[in-house]
């Protein structure tokens, strides 16, 4: 068995058993649940940012579309969030396809800026359309008794497993995509788009497919988030800092383009944020942000290719030795 599979199996077993040792209504399990969610979101971003090397800074657009779609359907029509999740994913995917058209030819910073603009536009729209979204006042998921059908639970524990399942699913999608024909084509496009075209890769098509997958998954995770927090506003789901930059940062810090990167990144960044907030916020204002920022900079300076890069290099050496 390959070492990466063994590692994944061990990690999954630990993740499945860990909550049994925790207070099911406690603070720690909430942090872990959020961490798993952000790992999944960052993994979805990784399909576009890591495989296609398109540095999106607008993934909040898809996340917010998902959160609002399912919640609006639930509030107005009493539809199950599972159906809302499908509708949101479809909308998110469609929006990703739409955004792909004007941003297709853009590379590097220009792509990042264009996607950033799309994310911000969605935030502004959500803020200025209160009849649909509740506007800046936000929107609440109507209270219901515990029910898997309505995706609502009093305890954090079911949400923990929901997010864990989501992370496993998205990671599986990422791994299968990366190892498949699409993954090869995306890497070719990332390395040299002209050469990829000349040997038959439809660069526009593969980039759009990656964007649609990523956007659809991100929207589905938006629904999971809405059900978990019960309340959100445009800033929390369409926010540049809270969502777009954070999911990109997690993947970049952990190791862009690798399956483990977003998971490692999320388990560093989210707890770090929480620690910085809970330990230091009582003291000088802004100190927690400062410490958090300095820690991030240190990590990036020490390991610019991502935290999993040294492990990846080791694995690559091992593979070539076996191939010989």
């Amino acid at each position, binding site marked *: 068995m390959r070492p990466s599979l063994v590692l994944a199996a061990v990690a999954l077993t630990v993740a499945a058993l860990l909550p049994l040792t925790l207070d099911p209504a406690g603070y720690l399990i909430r942090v872990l649940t959020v961490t798993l969610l952000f790992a999944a979101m960052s993994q979805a971003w990784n399909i576009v940012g890591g495989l296609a090397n398109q540095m999106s800074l607008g993934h909040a657009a898809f996340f917010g579309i998902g959160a609002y779609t399912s919640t609006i359907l639930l509030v107005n029509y009493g539809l199950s969030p599972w159906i809302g999740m499908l509708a949101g994913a479809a909308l998110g995917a469609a929006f990703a396809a739409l955004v792909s058209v004007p941003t297709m030819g853009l590379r590097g910073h220009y792509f990042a800026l264009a996607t950033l603009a799309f994310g911000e536009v969605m935030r502004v729209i959500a803020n200025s359309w209160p009849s649909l979204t509740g506007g800046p006042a936000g929107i609440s998921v109507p209270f219901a008794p515990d029910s898997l059908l309505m995706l609502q639970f009093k305890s954090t524990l079911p949400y923990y497993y929901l997010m864990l399942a989501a992370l496993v699913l998205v990671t599986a999608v990422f791994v299968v995509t990366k190892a*498949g*024909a699409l993954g*090869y*084509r995306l*890497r*070719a496009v990332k*390395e*040299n788009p*002209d*050469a*990829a*075209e*000349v*040997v*038959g*890769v*439809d*660069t526009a098509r593969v980039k759009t497919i990656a964007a649609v997958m990523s956007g659809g998954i991100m929207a589905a995770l938006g629904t999971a988030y809405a059900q978990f927090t019960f309340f959100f506003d445009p800033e929390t789901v369409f926010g540049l800092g809270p969502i777009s930059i954070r999911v990109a940062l997690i993947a970049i810090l952990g190791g862009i383009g690798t399956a483990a990167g977003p998971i490692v990144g999320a388990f560093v960044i989210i707890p770090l944020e929480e620690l910085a907030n809970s330990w230091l916020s009582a003291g000088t204002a802004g100190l927690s942000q400062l410490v958090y920022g300095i820690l991030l900079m240190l990590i990036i300076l020490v390991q610019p290719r991502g935290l999993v890069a040294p492990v990846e290099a080791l694995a690559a050496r091992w*593979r*070539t030795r076996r*191939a*010989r």
Partner: protein
Amino acid sequence: MTDAVLAVANLSKQFGGLQALRDVSFTVAAGEILGLIGPNGAGKTTLFNTLVGIHKVSAGSIRLEGREIAGRKPHRIAALGLTKTFQNVALFMDMSVLDNVLVGALLRQDLRSARVTAAACLDRVGLGAVLHKRAGDLSFPERARVELARALATGPRVILLDEVMAALNAVEMDAIMGLIRSLRADGLTIIVVEHHMRAIMTLCDRIVVLNFGQKIAEGSPAAIARDPQVVRAYLGREYQA
């Protein structure tokens, strides 16, 4: 001209105010090796890039096996059977040698059979021993061979080779020339851009000469070597065959 695999007619390419190609016309017959020569900046690489669709055609027509391909995207043109190698070597540097070629093979095959094709193409260019090396770690002559293997893996009818023999020593050059001849024997039609006169003169059936974006001569290697206009523009002195 029914047996022309590739027919270029009155092809022009403009970059802003620069006329890079002006009214270029020529045909290539099935199984032919056509040489394309000219001084630096004559438009050879521009012509290649325009043929495969990287550059948009400003005017004129390009017919591949009778089908108009001018204005199509490169991947469509590759699917119709025309591809090229890159002069400055445009490999996917961070991918393995095998994976580079695999991307080309995926044009017509699924992943499993593409892997087999890619390995066979690399064997053919003599790189069967370095499949798992990172492309960026290869020497320049090796990279040129990977380029060739990747182009072959797409299953082309016509292949444009842009200076695949640059930086090769005499032995390596002979090996590549043997390889190009064997590709022709397999039914491929080939256009070569090359600066090595010995290679061009011995390899090609016919030669087209470009200067300042225009065709100034076309004919057999012997005729080209004697053409006073070509000698003046490019060869500098009469080529001693």
